[in-house]
């Protein structure tokens, strides 16, 4: 079997939703689109851009600054912060949105305490909290770790040379940071931001609750409420185009700017820390962790205790198993395919494989519901022409959809890892008489081991949080932790949903701590 053909075929199966979209835009009806253009599109675009701006802005502050201090200073508790700053990634954005809305609402603890004990101060906390600015901040609270990690690796790998040169030139820390470190790290910063922007574009539940209409809400409004698949497809294609531009830009910058990284040349301790600066460093590093993880988790745990009597532990166990196994199987498949793509791309140097391995990542930008529904359509079509009856609600189809959706998450770390290693490795292997399989097993597998772990864990954490695809494609009587959390949360039974969200968060957190250790160990990050 020709490997190039095989990978191309697999990729085709993974980009079905994209093909479906292009197909449905053919012969489309512009009448409704004109209507949308006149009434809504401007508002949708503005909201989407503003929300992206807010989330990116807050993420930059929450992510880059602590990464800088932790990379360049030695202080007590540094390794603790390095682990916990990563944890908010375990919290799905809809959970953080619902949790904070509950904490801040009229009947939540803050307003109640003020109302009942300090009536004269109550007017200062009695505000309308459901604002797009708060939403942007909340999303940043759980998404900044993408940026933090990227920066942390980048800052540490830069080595101390750049900083020493800057010191010799008499630059202040402030100048060094903005004039040297940020420009040099822009590739990493951009790759972190890319993931954050994707997540914002995809978000639906939290956005709807806050009454913010984004592009994704527009897709659903046309598709669902007005049964207008045409307009929905046009919007989805617009979304896809925007994302493709970001994507190309990211690829372009990362190929254009390459800096020599010198590992094992520690930057930490480059700046000294006195008592006063230690204090503000603590505050800066504690802030994202406290708001993004500690407070919501404590609130959720408190709710769990309130509802402990009505928790059905047998059901809980089943749901946890379901979530765990689904995420595990799907992540294994994704990582396996991602390795296959990267390996074939590398040894075959084929343009077609290159093209496909890039394009499968684009599916990440589509809302999960679009992926799920286009998949059903495709399967119905296959079933019709082949006469095979397909059980739509089956786990295999669910896993298939997850693989499509999260391919990009798995590919991203593997791609950079595969690209980093020189081709001379392959040539040497071949000269030693290795065939492709041995080459893979003896060389590529071991040297890319770290990124394989990273890819697996990131996929796992994402899938365990996944909602729309699971809702639409799951088999009968099949629930996951995320589904159950959502069902209670949209009925505003936050307390009842808490035990399910807690387990999602804990499962994710354990894996993320593990991941942190793998990254630090392998990169020798200080």
């Amino acid at each position, binding site marked *: 079997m020709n490997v190039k053909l095989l990978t191309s075929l697999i990729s085709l199966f993974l980009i079905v939703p994209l093909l479906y979209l292009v197909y449905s835009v053919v012969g489309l009806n512009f009448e409704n689109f004109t*209507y949308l253009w006149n*009434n*809504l599109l401007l508002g949708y675009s503005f909201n989407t851009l503003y929300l992206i701006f807010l989330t990116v802005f807050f993420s930059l502050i929450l992510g880059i600054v602590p990464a800088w201090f932790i990379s360049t200073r030695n202080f007590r508790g540094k390794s603790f912060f390095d682990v916990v700053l990563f944890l908010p990634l375990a919290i799905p954005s809809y959970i953080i949105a619902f949790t904070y*809305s509950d904490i801040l*609402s*009229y*009947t*939540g603890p803050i*307003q*109640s305490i003020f109302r009942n004990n300090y009536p004269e101060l109550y007017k200062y906390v*009695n505000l*309308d909290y*459901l604002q797009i600015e708060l939403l942007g901040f909340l999303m940043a609270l759980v998404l900044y770790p993408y940026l933090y990690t990227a920066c942390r690796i980048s800052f540490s790998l830069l080595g101390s040379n750049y900083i020493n040169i800057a010191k010799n030139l008499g630059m202040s820390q402030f100048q060094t940071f903005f004039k040297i470190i940020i420009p040099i790290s822009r590739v990493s910063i951009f790759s972190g931001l890319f993931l954050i922007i994707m997540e914002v574009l995809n978000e639906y539940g939290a956005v*709807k*609750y*806050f*009454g913010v*209409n984004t592009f994704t*809400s527009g897709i*659903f*409004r046309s*598709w*669902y*409420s*007005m*049964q207008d698949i045409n307009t929905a497809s046009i919007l989805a294609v617009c979304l896809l185009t925007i994302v493709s531009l970001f994507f190309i830009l990211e690829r372009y910058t990362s190929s254009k700017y390459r800096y020599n990284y010198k590992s094992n040349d520690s930057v930490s301790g480059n700046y000294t820390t006195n008592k006063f600066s230690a204090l503000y460093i603590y505050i800066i590093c504690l802030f994202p962790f406290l708001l993004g993880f500690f407070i919501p988790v404590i609130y959720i745990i408190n709710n769990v205790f*309130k509802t402990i009597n009505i928790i059905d532990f047998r059901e809980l166990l089943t749901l946890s*198993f*379901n979530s765990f*196994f689904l995420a*595990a*199987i799907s992540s*294994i498949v994704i990582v396996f395919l991602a390795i296959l793509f990267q390996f074939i791309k590398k040894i075959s140097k084929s343009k077609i494989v290159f093209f496909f391995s890039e394009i499968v990542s684009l599916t990440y930008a589509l809302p999960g*519901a679009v992926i799920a*529904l286009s998949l*059903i*359509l495709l399967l*119905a079509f296959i*079933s*019709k022409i082949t006469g095979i*009856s*397909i*059980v*739509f*609600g*089956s*786990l*295999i189809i669910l896993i298939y959809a997850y693989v499509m959706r999260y391919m990009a998450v798995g590919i991203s770390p593997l791609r950079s890892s595969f690209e980093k290693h020189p081709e001379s490795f392959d040539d040497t292997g071949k000269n030693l008489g290795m065939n492709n399989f041995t080459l893979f097993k003896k060389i590529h597998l071991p040297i890319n081991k770290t990124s394989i772990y990273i890819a697996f864990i990131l996929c796992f954490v994402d899938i365990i949080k996944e909602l729309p695809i699971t*809702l*639409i494609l*799951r*088999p*009968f*009587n*099949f629930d996951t932790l995320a*589904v159950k959390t959502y*069902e209670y949360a949209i*009925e*505003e039974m936050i*307390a009842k949903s808490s035990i399910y969200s807690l387990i999602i968060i804990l499962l994710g957190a354990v894996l993320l701590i593990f991941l942190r250790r793998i990254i630090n160990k392998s990169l020798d990050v200080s």
Partner: protein
Amino acid sequence: MKKLFPLFALFILACSNDNSEQIVNMYSQRHYDVDQLQYDNFEKITGIKVNVIKANADELIQRMRNEGENSPADLFITVDVGKLWQASEMDLLQKYNDESLTEGITKSLTDPNGFWVPVTYRSRILVYSNERVQESDLSTYEDLANEKWKGRLLVRSSSNSYNQALLSSLVANLGEEVTQNWTEAVVSNFARDPKGNDRDQVKAIAAGQGDVAIVNSYYIGLLLSSENEEEVNAGKSISVFFPNQGDGQRGSHINVSGVALAKNAPNKSNALKLIEYLTSDEAQEIYVNNTFEYSVKPNIDPNDIVKEWGAFRKDPLDLNMLGSKRNEAIRIFDSGGWK
């Protein structure tokens, strides 16, 4: 890793459905705890197991449509009758063809076309601040366009299907032009941009951000029976008002949670038995006391909390209009600036 593979395979197999037993497959927009209670009860009585997939009504409609002839769905149950109309329009449903199914059910709540059977109903009502509004200030939905409500109205987003159904009823009753003007006036009376869910609107009244809100009746019941004392207090700070009750007025807008047979239902006779059960007196009692909805049978009293609000006259509009006027309603929302 290798050791885990048999486990994975077992997991996938264990989750596949067993076809040998008596089953009925339900696509459900309802996802309250009480629904599972009903299905368990039904299985106890008949031995028929109810398989459920719960999701948004629109997603379920798209799923049925895309599944086509092979859809395993027997029944489709929603909390917005407009979605049932939509499904029937898309040729996803079949008529139940059995008059005995609607025996004892209030006639005005049933489907003249014979596709769906009502299970419960709810009204979209007004609630008002006890401190800042007199009951006599309120009268009709139409009156909410009055300038006296400037900066005082609260309601959730127009993407919510309860709001879409309400506006559809106005289009059906008053015509497009009047509804358009009404919408624009109401939007200019908003206390804030639409956001949150129905309970959030009640809390916003309690917090003093607005004075009158449009909400579904049962949410007030849920607030008043909440375990959080602050929520109960918020519920007590407002009163319920049924609009359009005066002489010659049409009555309050209602919406039905209903169930319909899927076009290619593989377990049709079991499905009919489940419909029969859900409209039985026993099941109706369970609904009214757990979700604070109204029973579709006149002989079943509402829950005590709901009973205190008194009886009200229902808008007698053919409920299918809540679906057939939907597109016009959404366009009016959009052009009127109701976010």
